[in-house]
């Protein structure tokens, strides 16, 4: 198989098969917290994409050129958190300047990207799966796009729910959690999709 096809397949598998929310159950907090409106969900997705891609890039260098050289691989988690926290700070300052309305809409969930386990999950998985630099960044970027897909889909469904007739006990979060579960089951259909070719 040519390397380009391999990379394309890898990208698809990041978005669909190994979706961080529906298959690995990472990053569920912002998935439920910011999926009220499609616009904010999209903004959140963009912010997470930015942080995840850059985090994958930087943590690759931090791990292989600093930690491995010094024999400090066991510090990877805390070092990665440092990288992610700094990146989130950068994103926050940038958004405050560039788009105050999105900054206001994301609210507390923006600094909470720091503790979004999907971001830390990507960077740590890059190491355990021994991806090279290209694959690490692709994993970050397309994993985040998968996150964005999930959160935007969820926001779409929840916007429709606003006008739907829901029995009182299911209103609000209960129905959201049920939907999240159903979507997760739907995404199970993608599992092993590329197993034969990869």
């Amino acid at each position, binding site marked *: 198989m040519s390397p380009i096809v391999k990379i394309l397949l890898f990208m698809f598998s990041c978005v669909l098969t190994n979706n961080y929310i529906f298959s690995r159950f990472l990053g569920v907090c912002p998935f439920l917290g910011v999926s009220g409106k499609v616009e904010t969900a999209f903004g959140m997705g963009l912010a997470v994409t930015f942080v995840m891609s850059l985090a994958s890039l930087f943590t690759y260098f*931090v791990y292989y050129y*600093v*930690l491995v050289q*010094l*024999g*400090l691989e066991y*510090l990877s988690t*805390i*070092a990665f958190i*440092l*990288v992610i926290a*700094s990146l989130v*700070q*950068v994103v926050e*300052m*940038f958004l*405050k*300047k560039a788009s*105050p309305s999105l900054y206001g809409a994301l609210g507390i969930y923006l600094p909470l990207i720091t503790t979004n386990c999907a971001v830390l999950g990507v960077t740590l998985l890059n190491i355990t799966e021994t991806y090279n630099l290209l694959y690490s960044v692709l994993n970050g970027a397309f994993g985040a796009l998968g996150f964005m897909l999930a959160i935007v889909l969820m926001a779409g469904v929840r916007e429709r729910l606003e006008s739907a007739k829901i029995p009182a006990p299911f209103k609000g979060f209960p129905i959201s959690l049920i939907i999240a579960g159903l979507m997760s089951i739907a995404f199970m259909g993608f599992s092993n999709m590329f197993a034969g070719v990869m």
Partner: protein
Amino acid sequence: MATFLKILYAVAALGGLGILFGIVLGFVGKKFAVKVDERVQAVRAAVAGANCGACGYAGCDAFAEAVVKGEADPAGCTPGGSKSAKEIAAIMGVDAKDTEPMVARVRCQGTCENVSPRYDYSGIQSCRAASSMSGGPSACEFGCVGLGDCVARCPFGAISIVDGVATIDEDKCTGCGVCVETCPRGIINLLPRDQTVVVMCRNKAIGRIARLQCKTACVGCKRCEKQCPSDSIHVIDGVAIIDETTCTRCGACIQVCPMHCIINFYERGDMVNEAEA
């Protein structure tokens, strides 16, 4: 020695990374610095800064922005009082109106001694929940429930429950009015700080029933109304109420009230003793 080196490496590596990221963040922070109107910061410094929300905006920052935009009244910060109103007016270049300092007062003397309970309440410890249970656990369905919804909401820690009735520390109270909204019974009112003569009851029941409910209930006898030299106290809806714009604080009503439910706030020592005196 080897262990020591390992520790040193770990500290140096993380410390170095931290410093590196810090420097980068510093640069980015400078580059993306958002220019804030100086007046917003000046106004923000002039308000009381308790984030109490009494102005109707989401915190002091939002209020400061609204003032600079011209949406909010410069005197809108009640806790800051006339001091901050003047400062803000000076920043914004408008004339300051003198605002009367307000204070929240609990119009109830329904202490454990004065009001007996009707039933034992063991539900959610909240006045709002308790008062929805067939008129509340105490005999008087107008008075203080004493479960402290206002205590929990007060941003200045000025309220405490003393002997079953909310009591406001007037030194701490800034008159923000959060408790006024919170009280399910509506017995906390914002009054001018110098309005020292206060009718301490909101019981609208007819005299005979009010008397049964509480030892110091207003029975609506109208003696105060007849005694008042400035015609500023009236029994409306079965309960006496003072018009603070005309009241001269002479205290004639205090003398004649048979139920001792009108008091002078600054002469009040212990609530219960005053009521029984």
